């Protein structure tokens, strides 16, 4: 994803050498080769996106024929209920925040820390946040806004993203740095740490529900040796989400490890030899040589991790069903249950459109950051 280069694909041999007929034949051939994929792709990926938008403007029952056009009503009850937007609301804070961001961005561009396109994208996001989103507040007298359940689900998802992204990225990086040695035994370790990634979600949840089980779990057995009380991870509302993060870390960290290993192998060994001549120790090496040279890989890994984390569903659905007390009810679970338990497909579709926009924003930030690097 981070090395998408449409430009190189489009580079065709000089067309002047070919006759008009030949070029026409090429074009026909090109589209014929594309046809099977593009038909499937359009029908099952692009069209559903627009159909999803259409459904989200309706009251649409899963079973039955009730389909009623309601316009933006679903979005209004998700986001806008009891909400109003004013220019003067907390104006000084918002202007100050925006000005501060602008100054920081300007300073970063001046010091060549980030490129112009990235800065522009970040600035536009900052305008959207400070001028737009922070101008929103609940109507007078109303304590809440939007859909309570949806808001909780968004909050839980964000909590999962914030807990899981740094831990999975950092553990992946540490494993990669430790394993980046040309010894045969490292291949074995790499296989072990990557192997958990290939299991399906229902297998890993089965494993971890058992591991974390207070009475039967292997973790409890282990803690018993030290005389510790078994912990009821999945039925404690403060521990359930961390337990799901641990499960996800065990499941997916091998993927990040491989990406980091690939990045590390692109660093020429001369760089380290030069650092060694300067008397750099392992820690200095890591922070001054490895990390800066891994910047590109790290950006890609972080963005992918954030996107994966936003999509979390299976672990939560199978381990806690969103409980206890709704503490692990995440967005995709909320979408699934609204659609397939409550039969409200229109409402669920509106939620998935919002999730999609969120992830699209993340992609755009990533592309602007990585394109900069190449330019």
């Amino acid at each position, binding site marked *: 994803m981070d090395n998408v280069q449409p430009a190189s694909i489009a580079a065709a041999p000089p067309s002047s050498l070919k006759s008009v007929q030949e070029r026409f034949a090429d074009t026909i051939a090109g589209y014929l080769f*594309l046809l099977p*994929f593009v038909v499937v*792709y359009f029908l099952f990926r692009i069209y559903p*996106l627009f159909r999803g938008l259409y459904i989200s403007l309706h009251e649409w029952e899963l079973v039955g024929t009730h389909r009623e056009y309601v316009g933006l009503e679903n979005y209004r009850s998700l986001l806008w209920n009891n909400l109003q937007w004013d220019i003067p609301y907390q104006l000084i804070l918002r202007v100050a925040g925006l000005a501060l961001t602008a100054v920081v961005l300007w300073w970063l561009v001046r010091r060549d820390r980030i490129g112009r396109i990235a800065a522009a994208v970040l600035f536009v996001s900052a305008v959207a946040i400070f001028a737009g989103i922070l101008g929103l507040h609940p109507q007078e007298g109303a304590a809440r806004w939007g859909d309570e359940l949806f808001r909780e689900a968004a909050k839980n998802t964000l909590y999962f993203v914030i807990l899981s992204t740094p831990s999975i990225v950092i553990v992946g990086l540490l494993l990669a740095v430790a394993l980046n040695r040309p010894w045969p035994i490292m291949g074995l370790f790499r296989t072990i740490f990557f192997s958990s990634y290939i*299991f*399906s979600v229902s297998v890993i949840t089965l494993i971890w529900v*058992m591991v974390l089980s207070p009475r039967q779990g292997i973790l409890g057995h282990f803690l018993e040796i030290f005389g510790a009380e078994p912990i009821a991870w999945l039925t404690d509302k403060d521990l359930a989400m961390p337990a799901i993060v641990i499960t996800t870390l065990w499941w997916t960290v091998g993927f990040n490890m491989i990406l980091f290993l690939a990045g590390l192998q692109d660093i020429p060994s001369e760089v380290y030899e030069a650092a060694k001549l300067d008397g750099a120790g392992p820690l200095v090496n890591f922070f001054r040589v490895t990390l800066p040279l891994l910047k590109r890989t790290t950006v*890609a890994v972080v963005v992918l991790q954030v996107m994966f984390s936003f999509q979390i569903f299976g672990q939560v659905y199978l381990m806690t069903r969103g409980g206890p007390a709704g503490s692990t009810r995440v967005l995709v679970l909320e979408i699934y249950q609204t659609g397939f338990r409550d039969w409200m497909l229109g409402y669920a579709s509106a939620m998935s459109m919002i999730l999609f926009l969120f992830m699209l924003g993340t992609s755009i930030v990533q592309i602007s950051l990585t394109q900069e690097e190449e330019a």
Partner: protein
Amino acid sequence: MLAQVIPGSLRRRFGTWSLLGLLTVVSIVWIAPIVWVIAMSLKPNNVLQVSTRGLIPDPFTLENYKDILNVSDVPRWFANSMVVSASTTILTLVLASLAGYAFARIPFKGKKLMYVFVLSGMMVPEQAVFIPLHTMFSAWEMHNTYQALVLPRLAFPLGVFLMAQFFQAIPQDIEEASKLDGANRLIVYARIMMPLSIPALTTLGLFTFVLTWNDYLWPLVSATRTDMYTLTVGLGSLQGTFAQTEGLGFLMASAVTASAPILIVFIVFQRYIIQGVRMGGRF
């Protein structure tokens, strides 16, 4: 202080051994849950009801695996997963290599635009389209069929991207020479490019297979009849219905059965799978 007393080579050797020791401990902890699950699958259920301790299956039994074969839906789900994963893999390879060949080798009008169009699909996650997809297959009355489980999976832009990248790397003159012989493009594609791209096809094929085998959300909403479950969905449903203590060994044996094909594929083709992760950068 210490640094001055101990010579450099000794210090380095100490560092090496402590790194190896640490990695060994961590990797044992890493696979302990897997070993434990396999051990439980080889123990009688009534023993597990009393205690789930121990990484060694003692007393040992194959009863759980016999139950899977004789009195459960697991073989049926296994067959479903095989049919769905194999057909998805073969069709993906055909579609992705045809499209990838066009992007890499045929100069045609609007190519750049089409390429961007195809790649932009990578930004549309399954979670954003599974509801509209569900209504489409409902309207066609195609839920609980293999087609419903296969077709949406084929819209996989990353496969096209990987194949296009691979074909680009093949030297152009191989193809030019054959064009002089009057061979047309489809023959060039089938007779020359396909045999040359066996490594890329293997990588993409393995990845498609593993991803399809492990797919959860779409099969969960589309295959609602028990006999159409895939193993991943079926195993999920067992977790919901089984009380934790009864049939624990059976449940663990199902998990082992569900993972066995993927584990074998992984051990045999590890190199290709890791290559796939590197090339794709996302799955």
